[in-house]
């Protein structure tokens, strides 16, 4: 493998990895506060994509505005799903809640398919996907750079949100111990609704960044969501830095391995998951959850 090809694959790996990392962050953020794996994440992201597509391509709204509208819509939908359904469901064990999100996923996917159709749509992007920059005899896709940079900005933004803002502090408190947090006067419901909303925004941003490069249809998020879950597990379900690490690691390894053994690419993420879990059952950076019998 020439150096040029190695660098090209690295860039692809970072681009894909930042999508995985964003999805993994949304999975981990939600898991930390509410101990739920949300399989409906993909459909929340789809909602954002379809709304952005309809507003811009069909109604001529500026892209940045419909982008924000899409993010807002998925945040509201996620918050509402938690507030009206998850919170009130009688099945409050982790398994019941998991099935609830699976039901939501099936329901929302069916609904979105009916509303927007199952055909492939060309999602508008901020840059043309085929445009490249020339550096010497080396060309680099503008879209790859955009995705990588936007992903990085979102991750830094999330860091400041979780570490510096008051609601972020409350989120960390709830993730450590919901009962005590409640007793200390933290409005747990507000925290949970906002962590559902923030998780939806992260997942939707990943989808909105991904969609222009491939076509938009109801199964857009199927693969990225699977990989995001895998990345979250590799990094550790309770660790936000772990999610970022897992995402990039998975993206880069996938780029290199996929180049040599394409058939192997789909199952690779899960082989990595199993390898990591055998040696570190709580992920690379995750902490063992203490349990009292």
């Amino acid at each position, binding site marked *: 493998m020439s150096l040029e090809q190695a660098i090209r694959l690295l860039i692809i790996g970072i681009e894909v990895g930042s999508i995985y990392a964003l999805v993994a962050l949304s999975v981990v953020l939600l898991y930390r506060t509410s101990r739920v794996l949300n399989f409906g994440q993909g459909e929340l992201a789809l909602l954002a994509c379809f709304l952005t597509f309809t507003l811009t391509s069909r109604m001529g709204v500026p892209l940045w505005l419909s982008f924000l509208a899409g993010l807002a819509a998925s945040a509201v939908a996620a918050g509402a799903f938690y507030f009206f359904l998850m919170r009130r469901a*009688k*099945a409050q*064990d982790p398994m019941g809640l*998991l099935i609830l999100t699976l*039901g*939501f996923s*099936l329901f929302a996917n069916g609904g979105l398919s009916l509303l927007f159709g199952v055909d492939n749509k060309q999602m508008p992007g901020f840059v043309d996907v085929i445009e490249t920059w020339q550096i010497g005899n080396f060309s680099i896709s503008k879209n790859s750079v955009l995705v990588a940079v936007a992903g990085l900005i979102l991750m830094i933004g999330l860091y400041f949100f979780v570490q510096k803002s008051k609601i972020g502090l409350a989120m960390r408190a709830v993730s450590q111990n919901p009962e005590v947090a409640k007793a200390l006067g933290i409005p747990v419901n507000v925290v949970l609704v906002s962590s559902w909303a923030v998780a939806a925004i992260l997942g939707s941003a990943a989808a909105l960044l991904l969609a222009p490069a491939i076509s938009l249809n109801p199964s857009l998020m199927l693969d990225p969501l699977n990989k995001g879950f895998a990345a979250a597990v590799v990094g550790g379900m309770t660790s936000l830095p772990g999610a970022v690490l897992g995402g990039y690691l998975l993206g880069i390894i996938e780029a290199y391995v996929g180049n040599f053994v394409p058939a*192997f690419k789909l199952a690779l993420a899960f082989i990595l998951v*199993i390898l990591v879990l055998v040696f570190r059952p709580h992920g690379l950076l995750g902490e063992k959850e203490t349990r009292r*019998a």
Partner: protein
Amino acid sequence: MVLKERYEQDLRLVGSPQGWAAFALTILLFVLIPQIFPAYAYPVALFMVYSLVAIGLNILVGFTGQISLGHAGFFAIGAYAVAKLAPIITFPAALLVAVVACAVVGYLVGIPALKLEGPYLAIATSGFGLAIQQFFANTPNDWFGGHGGLIVEKSQLFGDFFARDRAYYYIILAVVTVMVYMAFNLARSHIGRAFVAVRDAELAAQTSGVNIAKIKTLAFAISAVYAGIGGALFAPLLGIVSPESFSLLLSVQFLSMIVIGGIGTVAGGILGAGMVTALQDQLAQAGGWSGLLYGLVVLIVMILEPLGLYGRWMKIKLYWKSWPF
């Protein structure tokens, strides 16, 4: 109320004359279905196949408390074992191979699963399901037919008599009856009780002498065998096995069966399989609406009745037993 005085009464599978009557009626109904409602023979056969998988998954998820999103993988192993081997070594031998293969693979998956719980186990098992699907899709075409899959000819397997759909229905009925009986038996045996003990209080079970590692891997193996037999019966029923049908969605459907039917009981798995199969059979006519409606039913069940259909049935039964109090 039935007052139990002896341990043997607690162990009994069928406790009362009404129970025996209900049991006989159920068997009679299933025997007569192809004769009375020939149109329903296929969905009912499918229901029986799925109920095996649901029972197996319930043994793992409901009894032992380990989640699996990868049962489509075991189902696929069973189906491919029959599709590939039955023309060569006859159907019963292929069924046996499916059982052994699933038991071994289930045991092997159970070993790393010992260290995992909750979301980690869910994702790892879903990965197992995906890996199996990719394995069957990407191995050379003359092994398992690649993406196109394998055709299963009933007449080739069973001769002309059993090749008829109606006759094959009775093969399924016989196998499923035996397996259901064994599941009820397992639930009341010391192993079944150890499963439940591990779920409810792992530490307490361990101090009482339950070998956690052995019980957990055994649960995985038994669960895999049930799913594998389901797959083995499924292959000739459908006539074709292809990797696309063993997706994560199928695993999700299996999980939704036990949740809708009732987690932690054998009867719950059967009820859930019936409900989901009936729902899909009816929704297939709804075209684009099927996903939406199916999701809606799952949502409604989870929001209103977390114990599932069987839980609701037990509540009604209890209400009438103690009526008017």
